């Protein structure tokens, strides 16, 4: 598993993540009992709930590092790359949340999608951060990209409460969903707990690697740029 972006730290976290994943799948699929109410359906929740929390964590990290980039004293492209890497991993987890959520909905109520406030806000977040990643893809220098995406990330934070509040008013939370969460026995709670730990490790591991890949990408762009300038300077002095 050790690649060019690996260090002792990522290797340690990587191993811990893999061990955790094996535990998680074992508990999630086999060791934990069926739920009294929804029998097997609860196993999907073991992925759905942690990935939702990790997606929110990822977007908080993106917002904080965007603010750190914009603040004069702590301005550095590392913050920008961390914001980008965390947003990418966040979108991945949000995608998993939506996928497992709709599978769980299908299993529990026989319908893939339900227009209640939480699911709608999740979908909104997914699209918003797809927009954020599209903004990161625009041209311009690294500093322009960093500044532009930092502002968009902070604007996203401004939008979230607005959307959540208006969607909450529009379609209050479904009753069944809150009941299902209510009575999880301890073994199930433990699976959920393992899920959160493992997903957090996975998130950290992914972000560390992704951030270094972005750093290399920037370095490659800069090399390309320097080469062009050097060539022009040489050309001018002929």
């Amino acid at each position, binding site marked *: 598993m050790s690649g060019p972006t690996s260090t002792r730290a990522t290797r340690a976290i990587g191993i811990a993540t893999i061990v955790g994943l094996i535990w998680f799948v074992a508990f999630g699929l086999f060791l934990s009992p069926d739920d009294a109410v929804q029998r097997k359906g609860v196993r999907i929740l073991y992925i759905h709930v942690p990935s939702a929390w990790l997606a929110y964590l990822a977007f908080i990290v993106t917002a904080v590092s965007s603010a750190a980039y914009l603040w004069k004293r702590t301005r550095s492209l590392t913050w920008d790359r961390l914001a980008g890497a965390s947003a990418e991993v966040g979108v991945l987890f949000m995608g998993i949340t939506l996928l497992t959520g709709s599978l769980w909905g299908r299993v529990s109520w026989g319908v893939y999608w339900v227009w209640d406030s939480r699911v709608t806000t999740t979908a909104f977040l997914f699209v918003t951060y797809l927009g954020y990643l599209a903004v990161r893809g625009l041209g311009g220098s690294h500093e322009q990209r960093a500044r532009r995406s930092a502002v968009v990330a902070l604007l996203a934070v401004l939008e979230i409460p607005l959307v959540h509040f208006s969607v909450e008013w529009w379609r209050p939370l479904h009753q069944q969903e809150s009941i299902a969460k209510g009575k999880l026995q301890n073994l199930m709670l433990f699976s959920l707990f393992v899920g959160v730990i493992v997903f957090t490790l996975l998130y950290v591991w992914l972000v560390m690697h992704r951030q270094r890949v972005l750093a290399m990408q920037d370095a490659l762009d800069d090399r390309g740029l320097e080469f062009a300038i050097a060539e*022009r*300077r*040489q*050309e*001018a*002095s002929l």
Partner: protein
Amino acid sequence: MVLGLDLVEQREAVRSRVGLLGHSNGLYTDLTITENVAFWGATVGASAEEVSAAVERMGLAGRLSDVPVRKLSAGQRRRTALACLIARRAELWLLDEPHAGLDAAGRDELDTVLRAATAAGAMMIVASHEMERAGALATRMVEVAGGQIRGQIRGQESGTP
């Protein structure tokens, strides 16, 4: 220090007193010459007289001034942009290849206008490939290549630009 302002601390303040004219003229093509110049004048609260004086000095007065910018020639657009600089009381002009894209007549018109402006006291830094034309205008010339100053062609070392 530029125009008495420290470029590090007062970056924003110096902008309003400097006029940059690059390849794009920064005009609203749907509006007429007078409307464009009046708009730019209004950003510094210039009076109607100042606006018409600016249009006058750039040789755009009369019927021409009510023509939408999109119908103008490149030379006329360039002069409209310069009129906007005058209307917004820019003291230092930074002109990037002002002659680019103009025909011979347009260049002569531009030279007379630039010479009149410097006579009226405007300070100008012109970047141009056309040595003879720029040479005729400049009181001091410096050759720049590959981002470094190569040499001083004419004009005193120090003293007024």
